[in-house]
């Protein structure tokens, strides 16, 4: 089933996300004003997983939003055109503690785009970043506040986070660039 080399199984993914959930609540001293915002596409199901985990031990729910960053990319004229999808914010972000959730932190450019997209929606009190995998090779000064797993990679590799809603399985694998199936 797994393409390439497996670095996290579904079970390991669940544990990493549960730990991140605890860290988020601990570092924000509770749920007051907390909002999780998943970056489309795979950041959104991961944000929901974290929110579910928080709900299971805090007995309260955290709002989850979905952010589309395609209009904010810095490579719109140099790669095939991404499909723009709606941004959905159930509760505003003004004055909130926003945790951006993404699957992989690589160059940091997606996070840069997400920050710009977020600021156009309002002025959060604080913005933090949670990623399932930090694979290094950052090209701009951006780091994650919560990391599921640090994975050293070569530039010829692609880290693929697969989630059941989109890919039918839960796992994280590394594939060679030429064999990659999804983005």
């Amino acid at each position, binding site marked *: 089933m797994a393409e390439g080399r497996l670095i996290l199984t579904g079970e390991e993914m669940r544990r990493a996300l549960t730990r991140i959930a605890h860290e988020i609540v601990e570092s924000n001293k509770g749920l007051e004003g907390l909002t999780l915002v998943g970056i489309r596409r795979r950041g959104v199901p991961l944000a929901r997983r974290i929110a579910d985990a928080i709900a299971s031990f805090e007995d309260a729910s955290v709002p989850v939003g979905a952010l589309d960053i395609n209009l904010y990319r810095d490579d719109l004229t140099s790669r*095939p*055109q991404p499909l*723009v999808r709606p941004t959905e914010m159930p509760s505003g972000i003004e004055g909130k503690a926003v945790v951006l959730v993404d699957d992989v932190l690589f160059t940091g450019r997606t996070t840069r785009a997400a920050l710009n997209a977020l600021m156009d929606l309002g002025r959060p009190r604080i913005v933090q970043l949670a990623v399932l995998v930090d694979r290094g090779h950052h090209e701009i000064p951006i780091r994650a506040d919560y990391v599921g797993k640090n994975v050293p990679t070569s530039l010829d590799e692609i880290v693929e986070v697969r989630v059941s809603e989109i890919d039918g399985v839960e796992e994280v694998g590394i594939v060679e660039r030429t064999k990659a199936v999804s983005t």
Partner: protein
Amino acid sequence: MTHAQEQSAVVTQAEAPHRRRHVLDLDDFSRDEITALLDSAEAMRELLSRSIKKAPSLRGKVVLTLFLEPSTRTRVSFEQAGKMLSADVINISGSGSSAEKGESLLNTALTLQAMQADLIVIRSPHSGAPYFLARNLQRMGVVNAGDGRHAHPTQALLDLMTMRHHIGELEGKRVVIVGDVLHSRVARSDVFGLQALGASVVLCGPPTLIPLDLLRSGEGESLPDVSVEHDLDRAMEDADAVIALRIQQERQGAGMLPSMREYTRRWQVTEARYRRAKPGALLMHPGPMNEGVEIASSLAHGPGSQIEEQVTNGVAVRMALLYQLLTGGQEEAAE
């Protein structure tokens, strides 16, 4: 969640449409291409509803609008769409430009292309003018914002978006287009778009104002999903949506139209006729409206009316179109 959003959740990034440089009419659009564009327009609508209506994706792109015929909504709509995506939009009108000094359309366009504009949006009283420009411009893209009585593709796209937003996918839906179909570029483009999405179209109006060529494909075969019904009462039966067209007095030849009074009596969308359609059927009009002629005033401002929403969707659809035309990898060698 709207129908359209539900549907778009199923669509993946699988469809990578070929890179299009011009939009002249909808007759060369596939169902997939229209669907992808309408999905993207739904995302743009969300951007339109924000307090900061601006995204940076077309920064540094130059869009020209050249309107050689009067227009408020279409021109402003394109300008809004471009500006919300951060393009620089420059408006040129026929009067006050060198067209008044007798410069040809092509020379005007070549001059503008030499100024490094990326796209020209053109409205012309002459059918085919945008095609002529598209054939002769090497770098600049061309969008048809209405040419004579021929085509108005962005109006058709906003009509499709409005219908899909409210009644879901258009496959098998019954759409009535009533009025002066003959002189209507909107009706022509609507027919192509509705055909592509699998809706059935009923054309209704005085026999002198229904062009029979719309019932046949380019190859001369009759189109199964387009029909004519001169009696509006019958046409309205079970309709999912009704598009009332403007009576174009400025394009009217002698003898095409019975008296306005007779037109109003037989082809106005009235409360009684609206009740024959499906409950909650959509009422649409491309504007500008001759209120009390094509459509009863009470209906135009009533709950079924989508006329203002059409205007909002027009901006969203044009944003999606500009984004589609002006971003994405440059596979083609331009020069």
